[in-house]
C-alpha cells in the first residue's frame, strides 16, 4: 500500500427521486489498498461502488482515477472490473467463454486468451472447468469464475459487491482467505462492499463505516473496533455497552452516577458524552473490589466465553467473561481506564443519522 491516491471521490451526491442516497461523500482509495465499505443494508454501499464502476452517474461531484476525471466515462472505458453480488455470469456461455469475454472484446490473440483462461482458473482453484456451463456450478464456484472473469483483464482495481453474501458460513470463511491470497498475488487494489463487520475487520487494510449515505468513520480495523468515533460505529462493530455519561474533567467520567477513571482528555468540563465499553473489557471482581456493584441477571454459554448481563446503577451491562458467575450473585464491575472509549454526542447532521438506527 502506498500513499498514492488511486481513486478520489469528491463531493459525490446521488438521489433517487426524494431518496437522498449519498450526500457530499468524500473518500479516497490508495494504490494497492484493501478498502471495505461497511454498513447496514440500504446505506448506499452499492451505489458508491456503482458510481466508481460507472454504472451510475452521480448528481454532483467527481470521480478521479489516477488524477483524471472519469465521472462521465462509460464503464467499458474504465480500468477497473467488478465482481457482482449475484455473480452475473453469462449463462449462455461456457466457463471459458465467460472468462474470455473481456479479452475477446479487446481482440487479444487466441494463444494469449487460452493462457489467460488456464492461469485464471488455476488462480481460483478451478482447473479443468473450461467447458462447463455456469448453471452446473455451485454458488462458491460461480463466485470464483466471476472473479476469474474480472481479473484476466488485469484491472488496476477490483470492485467486489458483497461477493460472499450468498455463500454459507464455512465457505465464506474459506473464501475470505482465498480473496486475501488472491489480492496479494495480484498486487492490485480491492474495493470491497459488505454488511458483515467480521468480514470487514478480517480482510481489510481500511474500513469505511457508512450509515444512511454518510461516512461515519474511516480507519484501520483496529481503530474502528477499539476507538469508535460515535455510537453508531460502536454499536455496528461488535457488541458494546453504550452509556450516556458526563465528562467531569480530563481523565474522569461519570457513568450512570459513578465516577470512572479514563485516559481521554480535551472534552471540556461537565460535558455530556457517550461512553463505549466492550463487553470483553469489563472485569467481574468481588463486590467490594469493583468500581460499582451489580447483580447478575442472565447467563448464556457462548462457547468461547459466557455472556452475562449485570444490573448495576439501573443499567444492564453486557459482559463477556470466561469465568462463570451464577445468576443472582452480587459482583463488582471493574473497567481499566484505557478500555473506556469516550465519544462526542452527535451534533452535526452527519452524525444525526446515527441516532435513528440505534
Amino acid at each position: 500500500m502506498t500513499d498514492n491516491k488511486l481513486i478520489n471521490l469528491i463531493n459525490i451526491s446521488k438521489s433517487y427521486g426524494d431518496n437522498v442516497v449519498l450526500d457530499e461523500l468524500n473518500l479516497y482509495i490508495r494504490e494497492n489498498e484493501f478498502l471495505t465499505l461497511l454498513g447496514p443494508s440500504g446505506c448506499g454501499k452499492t451505489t458508491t461502488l456503482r458510481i466508481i464502476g460507472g454504472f451510475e452517474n452521480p448528481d454532483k461531484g467527481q470521480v478521479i482515477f489516477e488524477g483524471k476525471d472519469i465521472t462521465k466515462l462509460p464503464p467499458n472505458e474504465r480500468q477497473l472490473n467488478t465482481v457482482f453480488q449475484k455473480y452475473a455470469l453469462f449463462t449462455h456461455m461456457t466457463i471459458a467463454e465467460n472468462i474470455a469475454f473481456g479479452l475477446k472484446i479487446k481482440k487479444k490473440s487466441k494463444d494469449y486468451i487460452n493462457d489467460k483462461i488456464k492461469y485464471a482458473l488455476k488462480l481460483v482453484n478451478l482447473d479443468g472447468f473450461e467447458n462447463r456451463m455456469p448453471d452446473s456450478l455451485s454458488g462458491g464456484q460461480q463466485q470464483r469464475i466471476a472473479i476469474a472473469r474480472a481479473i484476466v483483464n488485469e484491472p488496476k482495481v477490483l470492485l467486489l459487491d458483497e461477493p460472499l453474501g450468498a455463500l454459507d458460513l464455512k465457505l465464506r470463511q474459506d473464501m475470505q482467505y482465498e480473496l486475501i491470497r488472491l489480492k496479494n498475488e495480484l498486487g492490485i487494489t480491492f474495493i470491497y462492499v459488505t454488511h458483515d463487520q467480521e468480514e470487514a475487520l478480517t480482510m481489510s487494510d481500511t474500513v469505511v463505516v457508512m450509515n444512511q449515505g454518510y461516512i461515519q468513520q474511516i480507519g484501520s480495523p483496529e481503530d474502528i473496533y477499539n476507538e469508535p468515533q460515535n455510537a453508531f460505529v460502536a454499536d455496528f462493530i461488535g457488541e458494546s455497552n453504550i452509556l450516556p455519561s458526563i465528562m467531569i474533567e480530563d481523565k474522569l467520567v461519570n457513568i450512570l452516577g459513578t465516577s470512572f477513571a479514563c485516559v481521554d482528555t480535551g472534552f471540556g468540563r461537565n460535558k455530556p458524552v457517550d461512553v463505549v465499553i466492550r463487553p470483553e473489557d469489563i472485569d467481574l471482581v468481588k463486590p467490594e473490589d469493583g468500581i460499582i456493584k451489580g447483580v447478575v441477571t442472565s447467563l448464556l454459554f457462548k462457547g468461547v466465553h459466557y455472556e452475562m448481563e449485570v444490573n448495576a446503577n439501573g443499567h444492564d451491562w453486557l459482559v463477556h467473561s470466561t469465568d462463570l458467575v451464577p445468576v443472582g450473585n452480587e459482583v463488582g464491575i471493574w473497567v481499566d481506564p484505557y478500555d473506556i472509549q469516550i465519544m462526542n454526542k452527535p451534533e452535526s447532521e452527519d452524525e444525526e443519522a446515527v441516532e435513528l438506527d440505534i
Partner: protein
Amino acid sequence: MKLFNITNTKTNSSSNKNGGSSLGNDKVKWLSLPYIVWMIGFIILPLLVIIYYGLTSGNKLKNLFTLGNIRLILDPTNFKALRLSLELSLISTLICLLLAYPLAMILSRSRMKSNNFIVMIIILPMWMNFLLRTIAWQNILERTGIINTVLNFLKLPTLNIINTPLAIVLGMVYNFLPFMVLPIYNVLIKIDKDVVAAARDLGANSIQTFLKIILPLSIPGVISGITMVFVPSLTTFVISTILGGSKIILIGNVIEQHFRVGNWHAGSGLSIVLMFFILVSMAILSKYDKEGEGGSLW
C-alpha cells in the same frame, strides 16, 4: 406437442419436491387429472379424428386407408395456396419480429410506472373480437374506405390495398403483433441487469453488449414469438376472407371450403399436411430453443 412437455416437467418437479413420498405423488397425479382429461378431450381426440378422416376415403363401400386426401396438396391450386400461405406468414412473422423487438426492448428498458399501462395498450386490442378488428381494417382499406377518402380529399391518387397480399400481411401483422411483443418483452425483463452491466464492465460497448448478451439471452422469447405469430398466420382463413376478398386463396381457405361443404376427408387430409409443416417449423425452432423457455407461453 408443447403441452405435453409442460405437463411432464410440472409433474416431475413437484413430485421431486415431495421427496417421492407416495402420498405426495398420488396427490400430484390426482391434481393433474383434470388437465389430462381436458387434453384428451380437446386435443388428442380431435387430432385422432382428423387423422382418421384424413387417411380414409369417404366411399361407404370401401372405407379404406388412402393417401388420396393427402395427395390433394399436389393439386396445383391447393399447392399454390399453400405456397402463398407459407410466403405471407413468413413475411408477416418477419415484419412482426422487426417491429416487436425494438418495441419490447424500449418497454423493458423504461423504468416508468406507466410500464404496465403500455403493456396494457398492447394487449388491449387482443380483448376485442378478432373479426371486428379485421373488419375494421377492411373498412379502412376499402376502395371507398377511410384511407382513400382522405387521399381523395387531398387530391392524391388512391391506393389499391384491399384484396391484395399486402392487405393480408397487414391484417396478420396487426392481429398477431402482440403475440410477438409479449414473449420477447417477458424474456427481456427477466435478463439480470447486472449481467448486462457485467458485459459493459468487461469492455463491451452497447452494440457488442446487445449482440453478445441481450440477443442470445432473448432467443427463447423470439422463438416463442415466432411460433405464436407464424402458426396462426399459416392457418388463418378469416383474414384472407375479409381482406383478400375471393381473389386470394390461402391454404386455410381451401381447408375451410372442404369442411364447409361437408368434405371432411379432404379437409382433414390437407390439415394433416399443414400440421406437418407446422411440426417441421417447430422442430427447426426448438433446435435453437435450448432453454425450453418458449414453452412457458404455450
